[in-house]
């Protein structure tokens, strides 16, 4: 048995996906499986056969950052950076499902992603700005 997180980081060298708690509490290891966010620390790699996995490395189109990534830079949504890949993927997934979320919907969409630096307000603000720039 191997964890998807370890295969991504150690075998595929995709180290953008971070390990935080290792028990599905913090969301640092968030990736998308077939368009759904998951904690990759809780997914045995045997369960992803035939699935489409998207990590933070697959978000930017060459040198063009996704609107959410750019908003995190412009509005101070990232500090130490450990939670950021997971936050960005959770935010993009939220906006894919709901392009104009309310503040409450943003909080619910990111409730499984913990940040110990920003206090969240800069992150929420970044997502609001990313919605506006998408319009």
């Amino acid at each position: 048995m191997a964890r998807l997180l370890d295969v991504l980081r150690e075998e595929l060298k995709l180290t953008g996906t971070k390990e935080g708690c290792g028990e599905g509490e913090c969301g640092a290891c968030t990736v998308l499986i077939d368009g759904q966010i998951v904690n990759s620390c809780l997914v045995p790699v045997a369960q992803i056969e035939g699935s489409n996995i998207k990590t933070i490395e697959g978000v930017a189109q060459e040198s063009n950052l996704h609107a959410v990534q750019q908003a995190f830079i412009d509005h101070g949504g990232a500090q130490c950076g450990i939670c950021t890949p997971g936050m960005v993927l959770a935010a993009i997934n939220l906006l894919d499902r709901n392009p104009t979320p309310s503040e409450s919907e943003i909080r619910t969409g990111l409730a499984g992603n913990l940040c110990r630096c920003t206090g969240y307000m800069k992150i929420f603000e970044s997502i609001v700005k990313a919605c506006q720039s998408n319009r």
Partner: protein
Amino acid sequence: MRAYIPGYELVTPTSLNDALKLIAEPGWKPFAGGTDLMVLLESGKLEPRRYINIWPLDELRGIEATPDSITLGALTTYTDVQANQILRKEFPMLCQAASETGGLAIQNRGTIGGNIANASPAADTTPALLAYDAEIELRSKDDSRWLPYQGFHTGYKQMLLRPDELLTRIRLPRNKSGWTHYFRKVGTRKAQAISKVCFSAVAHVHDDRVVDTRLVFGSVAPVVMRCVNVENELRDRVINTDLIKSAGQILRKEIAPIDDIRSSAPYRLQVALNLLTDFLSNLGSQPKH
């Protein structure tokens, strides 16, 4: 301590029948969404053994409705539950419990069958399943049986599931329309928290008289617990302050909360009493489903 990963084998069967043949042999255990088992693995507490990867088995997915009941495949996720229109309309406590379990990433992988078979007294969807009179299907290589979910958990982490059986389906009778539905989870925060106390209750009230009710608490006993003695006290009685008080006195004797890392016994007891009082005090004025 990290687990020694090569001590674990995870095999993917090609069909439900293949999975049932494997589980009939000694030493195999099912492995579904992994939201509980992988945590144990990571902390070195998962027993090294052979696991059957049932996650890809489509036979264990899907939500089917008949006029009398709705049947969920055991691999129905918390996200699937919240997206189903019939469940949202007729079984709102199950949907609310699903929405308050973990966060979205957990809800995308965690399954209702797993929530039952993991047998935690702090599970959040199982109080709702008990309150809705769920039945569960257990299948083995040679036979299958339906059991009432009530009574399935016989003690802490103990249940009426044979080693050669797989929990395959959950059936909910569609007979609670017009009842009041009440769900509250009390934890340290709304998402990603395990319950200190969880309460699922339904009641059919006519002219302020309790015709019938189900009262189920999580995290206050070795199993998720239907409080039958309190239900009997309430049945066929008119709701008033005296009745609410006597129901609370019976509840004190019926539940057995403990001190643990999440909460204390006195706090849990007080919260359980408050939730029961809140439910009963508002009977009649709650939205009907």
